[in-house]
């Protein structure tokens, strides 16, 4: 008995050792292959490389779906075919991307093409200044899709000392996240679309207390809000409608001022604190997650949320399964409140090419992005493969949403995307009347939309000071709204901040950069 067990253990242990070394060989073999091929590429054959050997590209990006696209899946293979590349894509959950990114950056283990979520972060700036990435600005003129598909303003905002270390990922600038409400509830209550913060408050109050769903029960809430530990979460829009500024800085007569110092921010906090006391926002907004807030709206418990109209398909599907008479256009995005709504910068994050990549390969990566932006390749992650993710009926593309979501084909948009100006408001699966309404609203929003003026401005002091400031501001805001601190605490904090040397230095540096622009 004992001997047997011993034998088994030995065999197991040996097989582990064998498996271990076998695995090693395999991986080192792979490495050799890799280096051989890059050597080949370096060794001349440059012209031939383009039409013959597919370029090997190691990409790292993040994903938002429950599971990332399959490794070397069908779509990936078709993209490889379309761009003449051999891709190995490392998907990292958007939850943890920053951790992995920082660790890889610090250990110098960089993929060829990599997403940089925040091109203004000190870690990235430092690495870029020390020459970790290619400055692509001298090359982009050769790639028409990249040049034209990405707005000039995006290149400008992400440039650093005249160099473009990152390729901005284009995004629509209009139709940013803003209030959306239940129009059917509004109609039930006989109320108008709110245009001012007071009217908004009244709507939230009525949505909470006046039985907007007419089921005779007090089971609704005005706004499905939540805050994060370091930012206002989806309640940041309330500050926006008071201050009229997107982001943390406001241009007041040509001078940038941090929004926390504005009296309007105080008004916004009081507004929310009243809303909390009146029960218009969730009792546990401070500990809610985004998805939980969304579920409140989806389940018909909350009458208002901040969301892009483009995200309504799922909301509609769920509300319809609860109430079969529910209409898509009952989900109504507000055009503006207090004459304000936010605009995006026209891009989100950048992709960078590691300097460890030789120039020729860097060019082939740019070529890949350029080819990828071509319609026939890009369509792969909008519609998927015909017969698998969509069918064509009477010339119309009908997407099999379930299959497309299961294969997470949308995640490829994180690597390469071709901007469609209405993408934030309208999705192909929406019914016609919803498409029309949302486009109309987006057009109306464009008139009053306010972009973030501070984007791309650099302040040395802000790098260490701002994260701590944001945190302490948010802590206090949360507490005041919850009622565990009074608004007077805010006043004294603002007074303190006005005298704060770091605050002054940061403001001066920001203004200096602002004037230089």
């Amino acid at each position, binding site marked *: 008995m004992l001997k047997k067990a011993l034998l088994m253990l030995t065999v197991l242990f040996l097989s582990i050792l064998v498996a271990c070394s076998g695995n090693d060989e395999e991986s080192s073999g792979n490495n050799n292959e890799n280096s051989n091929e890059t050597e080949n590429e370096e060794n001349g054959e440059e012209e031939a490389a383009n039409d013959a050997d597919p370029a090997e590209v190691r990409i790292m990006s993040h994903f938002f779906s429950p599971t990332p696209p399959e*490794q070397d899946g069908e779509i990936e293979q078709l993209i490889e075919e379309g761009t003449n590349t051999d891709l190995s894509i490392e998907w990292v959950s958007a*939850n*943890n991307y920053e951790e992995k990114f920082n660790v890889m950056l*610090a250990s110098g283990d960089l993929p060829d093409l990599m997403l940089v979520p925040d091109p203004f972060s000190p870690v990235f700036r430092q690495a870029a200044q020390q020459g970790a990435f290619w400055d692509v600005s001298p090359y982009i003129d050769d790639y028409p899709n990249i040049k034209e598909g990405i707005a000039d303003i995006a290149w400008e905002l992400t440039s650093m000392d005249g160099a473009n270390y990152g390729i901005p990922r284009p995004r629509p600038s209009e139709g940013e996240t803003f209030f959306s409400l239940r129009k059917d509830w509004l109609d039930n209550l006989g109320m108008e679309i709110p245009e001012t913060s007071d009217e908004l408050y009244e709507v939230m109050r009525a949505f909470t207390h006046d039985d907007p769903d007419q089921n005779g029960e007090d089971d609704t809430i005005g706004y499905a809000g939540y805050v994060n530990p370091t930012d206002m979460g989806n309640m940041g829009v309330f500050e926006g409608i008071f201050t009229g500024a997107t982001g943390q800085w406001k241009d007041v007569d040509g001078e940038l001022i941090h929004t926390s110092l504005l009296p309007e921010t105080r008004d916004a906090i009081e507004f929310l604190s009243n809303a909390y006391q009146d029960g218009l926002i969730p009792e546990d907004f401070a500990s809610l997650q985004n998805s939980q807030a969304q579920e409140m709206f989806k389940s018909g418990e909350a009458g208002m949320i901040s969301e892009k109209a483009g995200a309504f398909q799922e909301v509609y599907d769920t509300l319809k399964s609860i109430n079969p008479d529910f209409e898509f256009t009952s989900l109504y995005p507000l055009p503006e409140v207090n004459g304000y709504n936010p605009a995006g910068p026209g891009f989100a994050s950048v992709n960078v090419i590691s300097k460890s990549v030789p120039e020729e390969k860097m060019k082939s990566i740019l070529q890949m992005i350029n080819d990828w932006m071509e319609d026939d390749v890009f369509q792969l992650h909008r519609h998927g493969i015909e017969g698998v993710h969509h069918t064509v009926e009477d010339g119309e593309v009908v997407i099999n949403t379930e299959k497309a979501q299961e294969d997470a084909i949308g995640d490829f948009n994180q690597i390469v995307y071709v901007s469609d100006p209405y993408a934030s408001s309208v999705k192909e699966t929406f019914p016609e009347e919803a498409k029309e309404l949302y486009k109309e609203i987006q057009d109306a929003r464009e008139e009053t939309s306010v972009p973030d003026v501070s984007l791309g401005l650099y302040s040395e002091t802000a790098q260490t000071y701002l994260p701590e400031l944001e945190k302490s501001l948010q802590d206090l805001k949360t507490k005041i709204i919850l009622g565990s601190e009074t608004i007077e605490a805010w006043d004294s904090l603002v007074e303190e901040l006005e005298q704060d040397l770091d605050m002054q230095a940061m403001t001066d540096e920001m203004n200096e950069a602002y004037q230089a622009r």
Partner: protein
Amino acid sequence: MIKKSLGDKIFDFSNLIFLGIISIVTIFPIYYVVVVSFTDPIEYLQKNMVLFPENWSLASYEYLLSSGAFVQSLGVSTFLTVVGTTCSLVITSSFAYALSRKKFKGRKFILLLVLFTILFNPGIIPNYLLVKELGLINSLWSVILVSLSNGWFVILMKGFYDSIPDTLVEAATIDGCNDFTAWIKIILPLSLPSIAAFGLFFAVQYWNQYFNALLYLNESSKWPIQVLLQNMLIDASSSSLGDVDPLLQPPPSETLKMAAVVIAIVPILMIYPFLQKHFAKGVMIGSIKE
């Protein structure tokens, strides 16, 4: 048989009641997870609290188990757990046993070295660089090797081996055993209860591997279940990244999340009964002591 006194009876009775209450408190949240995972998603959305669902639904499980990635990750986790636990037990128990013998020269020094590793941790990046230098990035062995053993387990296990008298081993030596064969033939079988306990510790550690897997494994096909689970349970703050996804992925529903939780804990629970029977055999060490 000695007759039970009244005090004994009261003690036994209140003990049973007390442990019963603890069990109920412990199991309620888990019961709730299981119930939610079997609840119809729409019913859950409407009610928010379901102690016993009206409409049972397997939809969440069907969705998850039809997902290739999910099933694959279960396989990866199983591999990590089985192979990792075996390696960990071999290395840790042999090391701990050697250190428990008084004749081992320099054991104090080595024990201090081991203790030091509990207190001082070089941090993520040096560890990453080591794994990279060893060529183990993107290999499942990276996840196993970095958590193969740790000071806690070595010191604890040594504490167990301390109670095995040297005389026992000496007796075996006379029978022609060397230290190695004595360890295998006598010590290991004797310490089976503690081996089983530590095996369970290691197994759970490997099953719940998350951060190392996230760092060292690049290909999603090599991810263990916990990486996928974390991704489902925690929200990414997509709004702040200004993200656009033409085929918007909705966040998974609460019922789906709970089904994923259930799927992620059932396999590791299944090894428990196999090890449990060994716990009872512990009496042997004690009887040798005399």
